[in-house]
C-alpha cells in the first residue's frame, strides 16, 4: 500500500470502530458497576466482606472480566490515539506502543487474578 503523504502506514478504521463499540458497551457496564459498588449498600462502609459477598453469582466473573477487558482496551487505545497525535517519529511511536501494550497485559493479568480470587473465595 503506497500512501504518499506523511503516513503512519497504519489504517485506523478498526481501532476507530472498536473504540466506539467498546464505548457503547462501557456506557452500560460502567454505570452498572457504579450503581452496584458505589450507590447500593447505602449506609454501609465498603469493606472486605461486603465486596466478597457480592461476588458469588455465576455471572460475576464474566461481567467483571468483560468490564475489565473493554475498559482496558478502550482506555489504552484512547491513550494510544492521543499519543499518536503528538508524536510523529516512528521510534517514539514504537516505544509508546510497547509501553501501553505492557501496561495493558500486566493490568489484565492482575485484574483477572483478582476476579478469580474473589469468585473462588466466595464459592469456597
Amino acid at each position, binding site marked *: 500500500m503506497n500512501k504518499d503523504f506523511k503516513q503512519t502506514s497504519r489504517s485506523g478504521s478498526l481501532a476507530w470502530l472498536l473504540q466506539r463499540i467498546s464505548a*457503547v458497551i462501557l*456506557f452500560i457496564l460502567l454505570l452498572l458497576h457504579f450503581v452496584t459498588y458505589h450507590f447500593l449498600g447505602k*449506609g454501609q462502609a465498603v*469493606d472486605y466482606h461486603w465486596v466478597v459477598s457480592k461476588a458469588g453469582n455465576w455471572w460475576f466473573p464474566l461481567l467483571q472480566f468483560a468490564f475489565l477487558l473493554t475498559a482496558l482496551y478502550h482506555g489504552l487505545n484512547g491513550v494510544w490515539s492521543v499519543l499518536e497525535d503528538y508524536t510523529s517519529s516512528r521510534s517514539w511511536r514504537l516505544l509508546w506502543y510497547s509501553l501501553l501494550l505492557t501496561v495493558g497485559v500486566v493490568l489484565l493479568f*492482575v485484574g483477572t*487474578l483478582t476476579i478469580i480470587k*474473589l469468585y473462588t473465595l466466595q464459592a469456597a
Partner: protein
Amino acid sequence: MYKRTRFYDFTYYNFIGSWAWILHRLAGLALIFYLCLHIWVIHTLTYGEETFNSVMVFLNSPLFKLLEVGLWGVILFHAFNGVRIVIVDFFKGSLAHKKLFVIMVAMAFALWALGSYLILSHVL
C-alpha cells in the same frame, strides 16, 4: 519562515466543540489513570482481609468520598459526551452537535447530582 504553533494554539477561540474535545480527552486520560490505580487497589483483596480493609479505611475517608464525587462527574461527562460522539459519528449528530452537547451535559449533571448525594450520604 517562522513556525508558531507547537502544541495547542492557546490564542485561538475555543468553541463548544473544542471544549467538548479537550474535556473529553482530559477526562479520558484521568479515567485510564484512575483505572490503573483501581485495578491495583482492588488487587489487594487477594492479599487477604486485613490488607484490604486497611486500604478501604483510607478510601472511605471523607476526603476520598469527595474525590469519588469528582470521579463520578468525570465519568459522567466522558460517558455522555462519548455518546454524543457516537451520535455524531453514526447518526448525523453534526447537524445539531451544540444542542446535543447541552443535552448530554445536562443529563450528566442530573445524574451527577443524584449520585453525589448517594455517595456523600454514606459519609454523612
